[in-house]
C-alpha cells in the first residue's frame, strides 16, 4: 500500500475523536443524501408512472397548429387547437407496431358560470367516459353519485374543482338526485352546511381566443377523485365528449349524423378567429352597417342524442397514446412524427412530460426542494469537516514540517490529506450510503399507502415507493466525492503552507 494511504488509514485510528466527529458527519450526510436521493428518485418515477398511467399515456398527438406542447396545462390557459381528422389518424395509428393503445379526447378552457358573481375558469376534459376509464387503468374512484353510462351526457366533477367552485362561486356541486354527503364537506363548507347552495347542474362556457362560444348545461353525474395525485390531476372535470364539443363550438358527432356538408364541416371545426377571417374575405364588399346573417343554430345547443353515434366523427384536441412495454419514448416519438408527416395528418406527437406543462414543473419543484435540503445538509457538513481538518492540519505542524524537511514536497502533503479524507469519506460515507440503501429497500418493501393529497405529491403517487437504481447510487457516490473534495481544499491549503521551518521553530 502506498505510504500516504498507510499514514491515512492509521491516522484514522490515532485521532479517534476527530475521526468520530468527521465520520459521524459523513455518515449522517451520506445517509440523508442516499435516502433523499431514493425519495427523489421514487417521487420522479412515481409521478411519471402515475401521470402516464392515469392521465396522459407516454405520448400525445396534438394539432400541428398548437403553438405550445403543454396542451394539458398551459400557463396562459390557452384553448387547444382542434383535430378534425381523427378517423384518418386512427387508421394510421392502428398500423403502428410499437403502439399498445390510443384514445382521442378533448381539452378546453372554460368558464363555469355563476349567476351571483364572477365565473370561475377551469379546464375540462371531453371524453368518452367508459373508454377513458378503461384506457387509464380505472385510475379514479367515484366519491358521490356514479360514473357516466355509455352515450350519457353530463359531467364528473373532481373533488379539487368542487372545492374551487365552493371557494370562488359559493355553491357546492352534488350529483343529480343524491343527498348531501356531510363527511365529504371540507371544513369551510361544513361550517355552512345548513345554508349550502347545492347545485346539480353546472353551466360551462367554452373560451376560445375570442371568448365567444356557447354555454352548455351539464348535469353533475358524480364527484370523482383520482386514486393517486388527485391534487395534481384533479384540476380537471370530465365532460362527455359531445357536450364538450358543443361547449367549445366544435363539430359534433351529431353534426356528422346530420350529414352536414364538407363546407360546414370545415367551418365548424375552425376557431372563431379563422371564421372571422373567412367572413372578412368573402364579405369584404358588404357595407359595414349591414347586418350579416348566418345560421346561428349551427352553434347552438343540440338536441339530445337518442341513438348511438360514431363519436369519433367529431372534433378532438388530442390523442392519448400508450406504448408497448419497454418501448423507448424518444425513439417512438421520432418514428411517429415522421409517419404523421408522411401521411399529412396535420398533427404532431409530443412526450407526456411536455404535454403536462406546469404539472411536470411541480414535480421539478418537489425534486428541487428535496435536492436543496440535501445540498444544505452537505453544505453544513462541508463547513464542519473543513474546520475539523484545518484544525488537524494546524495540530500536525511538527509532523508535516518534518516531512517537508526530509524532502517531502507540497504535493506529497496534499496527497496525504486527500488520502486521509478519502479514506474517511470512503469508510464512513460508504457506510452511510450502504445503510441508506438498506433503509430505502425496507421503506419500499413496507408499501406505505396514503390518501393524503400532500403526501401523495411527496410519494409520487398513493404508494410510498422510494427507489435507488445503480444510477442513483452512482450519483450518491459522486455527491459524496464532490463534498469530500470541497471539504478538503482549504485544509490542504493550510497544510501546504506548513514549512520545515515551522516544524523546527516548534521544536
Amino acid at each position, binding site marked *: 500500500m502506498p505510504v500516504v494511504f*498507510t499514514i491515512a488509514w*492509521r491516522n484514522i485510528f490515532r485521532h479517534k475523536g476527530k475521526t468520530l466527529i468527521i465520520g459521524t458527519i459523513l455518515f449522517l450526510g451520506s445517509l440523508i443524501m442516499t435516502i433523499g436521493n431514493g425519495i427523489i428518485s421514487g417521487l420522479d418515477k412515481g409521478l411519471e408512472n402515475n401521470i402516464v398511467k392515469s392521465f396522459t399515456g407516454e405520448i400525445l398527438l396534438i394539432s400541428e397548429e398548437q403553438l405550445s406542447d403543454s396542451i394539458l396545462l398551459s400557463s396562459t390557459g390557452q384553448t387547444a387547437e382542434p383535430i378534425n381528422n381523427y378517423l384518418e389518424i386512427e387508421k394510421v395509428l392502428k398500423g403502428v407496431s410499437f403502439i399498445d393503445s390510443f384514445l382521442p379526447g378533448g381539452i378546453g378552457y372554460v368558464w363555469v358560470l355563476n349567476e351571483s358573481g364572477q365565473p370561475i375558469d377551469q379546464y375540462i376534459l371531453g371524453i368518452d367516459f367508459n373508454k377513458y376509464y378503461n384506457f387509464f387503468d380505472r385510475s379514479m374512484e367515484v366519491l358521490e353519485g356514479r360514473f357516466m353510462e355509455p352515450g350519457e351526457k353530463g359531467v364528473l366533477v373532481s373533488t379539487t374543482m368542487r372545492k374551487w367552485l365552493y371557494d370562488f362561486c359559493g355553491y357546492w356541486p352534488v350529483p343529480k338526485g343524491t343527498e348531501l354527503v356531510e363527511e365529504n364537506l371540507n371544513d369551510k363548507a361544513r361550517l355552512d352546511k345548513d345554508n349550502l347552495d347545492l347545485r346539480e347542474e353546472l353551466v360551462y362556457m367554452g373560451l376560445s381566443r375570442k371568448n365567444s362560444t356557447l354555454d352548455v348545461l351539464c348535469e353533475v353525474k358524480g364527484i370523482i377523485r383520482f386514486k393517486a395525485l388527485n391534487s395534481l390531476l384533479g384540476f380537471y372535470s370530465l365532460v362527455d365528449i359531445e357536450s364538450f364539443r358543443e361547449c367549445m363550438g366544435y363539430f359534433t358527432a351529431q353534426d356528422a349524423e346530420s350529414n352536414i356538408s364538407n363546407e360546414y364541416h370545415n367551418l365548424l371545426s375552425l376557431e372563431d378567429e379563422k371564421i372571422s377571417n373567412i367572413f372578412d374575405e368573402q364579405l369584404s364588399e358588404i357595407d359595414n352597417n349591414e347586418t350579416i346573417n348566418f345560421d346561428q343554430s349551427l352553434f347552438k345547443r343540440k338536441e339530445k342524442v337518442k341513438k348511438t353515434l360514431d363519436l369519433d366523427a367529431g372534433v378532438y384536441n388530442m390523442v392519448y397514446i400508450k406504448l408497448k412495454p419497454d418501448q423507448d419514448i424518444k425513439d417512438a416519438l421520432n418514428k411517429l412524427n415522421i409517419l404523421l408527416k408522411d401521411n399529412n395528418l396535420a398533427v404532431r406527437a409530443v412526450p407526456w412530460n411536455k404535454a403536462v406543462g406546469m404539472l411536470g414543473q411541480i414535480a421539478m419543484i418537489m425534486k428541487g426542494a428535496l435536492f436543496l435540503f440535501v445540498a444544505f445538509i452537505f453544505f453544513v457538513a462541508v463547513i464542519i469537516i473543513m474546520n475539523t481538518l484545518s484544525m488537524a492540519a494546524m495540530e500536525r505542524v*511538527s509532523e508535516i514540517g*518534518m516531512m517537508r524537511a526530509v524532502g*517531502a514536497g507540497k504535493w506529497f502533503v496534499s496527497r496525504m490529506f486527500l488520502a486521509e479524507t478519502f479514506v474517511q469519506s470512503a469508510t464512513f460515507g460508504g457506510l452511510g450510503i450502504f445503510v441508506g440503501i438498506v433503509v430505502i429497500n425496507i421503506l419500499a418493501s413496507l408499501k406505505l399507502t396514503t390518501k393524503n393529497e400532500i403526501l401523495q405529491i411527496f410519494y409520487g403517487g398513493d404508494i410510498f415507493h422510494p427507489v435507488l437504481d445503480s444510477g442513483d447510487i452512482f450519483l450518491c457516490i459522486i455527491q459524496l466525492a464532490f463534498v469530500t473534495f470541497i471539504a478538503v481544499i482549504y485544509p490542504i491549503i493550510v497544510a501546504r503552507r506548513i514549512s520545515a521551518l515551522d516544524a*523546527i521553530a516548534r521544536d
Partner: protein
Amino acid sequence: MSIVLLKDVRKDYPLGKTTVHALQGVELDISTGSFISIVGPSGSGKTTLLNIIGCVDQATTGSITIDDQDVSRMTDNQLTDLRLFKIGFIFQSFNLIPVLNVLENVEFPLLLMKKYTSKEIRKKAEEMIEHVRITEQISQRPSELSGGQRQRVAIARALVTSPRIVLADEPTANLDSETGAQILSLMKRINEQNNVTFIFSTHDPDVLKYANDVIKIRDGKVIERIKCQ
C-alpha cells in the same frame, strides 16, 4: 574540499516595528567529512545558521553554496529535492511519524526519492537500523520507544538516503547524559565510517569532545573557530 560555503550571509527578521538581525555577515567554509559543532548562547543565531545551511530558511543576502550548488536562487521544489538527496536532519524532539513503525519511518525518505525498488528500500532501511542498533525495536512505533531509541531512529532516517550533510539541532537536548553520549558516539562513528559531514548546534560542553571543529557564534556573527584535533 568544501561541502558548505557561506559568504557574507545575513538574515533579518521583522519583529513588530523593528528588525532582528539574526545573522550578520557570516562567512563559513566547511569541508567534507567534518564533525562540526556550532556553539553559542541562546539567541546567538545557531539555529538560524543551521536552517540556512539546511535550506529550510533563506538568507536575506549573501551567497550559500551546498555541495557546489548555489542555493540562493533555487525554487521551493529544487530546495526540497536538495534536502531529500543531500541533507539529513536530526531534530531535538526526534519528530518521527507517529503512525509509522521504526522500519517504516526509516524507509520514509527512501520512498520519497522514488529511486529504489521496494526490496531495495527494505534492505537499505534494515541495514541502517542495524547500524544504529535498534533492530529489536524494528516493528515498534515511536510512542513505544525511549528517547535514545527515538533519536537513533531519527539518525537512521537522516542517514538512510546517504546524504552529504547531516544537520542536528541540539540532538542531545532531550536525552539524559549517558544516552546523549551514546548518540554522539554513534554520530561520530558514522561520520568516520561514511565520511558524512555532521553539523550540529549544542549547549552541551561534552559534545566538544567529539567535534573536530567548534564554531562559536554570538549576536549573529562567527566570533571564533576552534580546531579540536
